[in-house]
């Protein structure tokens, strides 16, 4: 579409005559098939859009306000979550919280693995030998050790 027509498009579509928009002087619309065709298509589009006008009498049923309040109350409980999801700040906050929770989780899991490593090393200490079992299960020397401790105290 040429500029001469484009600049006055709204006037033309609003029903203004070409002469109102200063177009008659150059006779552009009369001589330009492209602009004429586009104006015709836009008029048809305009007619389609205007089909969305509702009849005057369209109104909600009586008691509409009460039903609106009922809906607000039913959505009120959920609205605390909408604070997070409806606003960009809330979404950012929710995202940051999720990232933080994820990081803490990863840290905890990895540190737990880290803590298990020395335990593994202790477990891998070579078996001290067959006599070591005697210390745990009650060896013949155990009583002697206890006697020594008692006598040490008495001294």
């Amino acid at each position: 579409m040429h500029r001469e027509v484009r600049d006055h498009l709204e006037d033309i579509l609003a029903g203004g005559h070409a002469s109102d928009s200063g177009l008659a002087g150059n006779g552009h619309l009369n001589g330009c098939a492209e602009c004429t065709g586009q104006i015709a298509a836009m008029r048809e589009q305009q007619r389609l859009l205007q089909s969305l006008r509702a009849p005057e009498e369209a109104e909600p049923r009586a008691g509409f306000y009460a039903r609106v309040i009922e809906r607000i109350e039913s959505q009120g409980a959920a609205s605390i979550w909408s604070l997070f999801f409806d606003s960009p700040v809330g979404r950012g906050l929710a995202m940051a919280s999720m990232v933080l929770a994820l990081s803490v989780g990863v840290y905890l899991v990895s540190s737990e693995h880290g803590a298990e490593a020395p335990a593994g090393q202790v477990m891998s200490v070579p078996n001290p030998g067959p006599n070591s079992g005697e210390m745990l299960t009650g060896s013949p020397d155990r009583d002697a050790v206890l006697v020594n401790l008692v006598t040490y105290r008495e001294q």
Partner: protein
Amino acid sequence: MSGLSEALQFPAAGTRTKALPSRTRVDHKNSDEAALVKRVQARDEMAFREIVDRYQAKVFSIIYGILRNHNDAEDIAQQVFAKIYFSIRNFDFRSSLLTWIYKITVNECYDYLRKKRVRKLVYESDFSVEDAQRLESSEPAVDPSAPIDRRIAQHDLVIKLLSKVSEEDRTLILLKEVEGHSVEELAAMTGLNENTIKVKLFRTRQKLLKAAQRLGRIRGIAKVNSGQ
């Protein structure tokens, strides 16, 4: 209604208001309507009730115009006012309250249509007998002699075409063509420059034509665009 709302009342469907003086700017922050909004922001229930009373018919008409179903219109109108209640604290007075409500309303309609499409219940074939009769008896903008099937198909087409443009463009073109506002009024309502409005409207019209061309539905479009 006074102040802002007097200046920006929606004209009756099909009528065109006399244009406001060029470059009209409305101070959306200092008007009776702004005072009402501030009361709602402070959770004054009476003020909210006033907003519902003032705009319920308008909201219902917008929705009914798009969906052509009374039950759906009632349900979505309730949802629109619930949304207004919960989000009015974000209203920043850059546009008129009407413009803001209009945008919410149209967006709710399209959300509803999108959800419906997801449920595979596409736009058409959803008119009750009552609604179809109502459509038949009261649709001045389209050719009344056209059969009802064709008019429903045209209605579905325009809804589908509008889904191809952005929310902002959709709201603007509907305010222009459905509500009948002039460019000057749109500038006052949105706080945008008149030239910006004209450019946006032109681009939206072109997008709609291209979408229609893809669907092959508006007569003569293919021929017109092939000459570009």
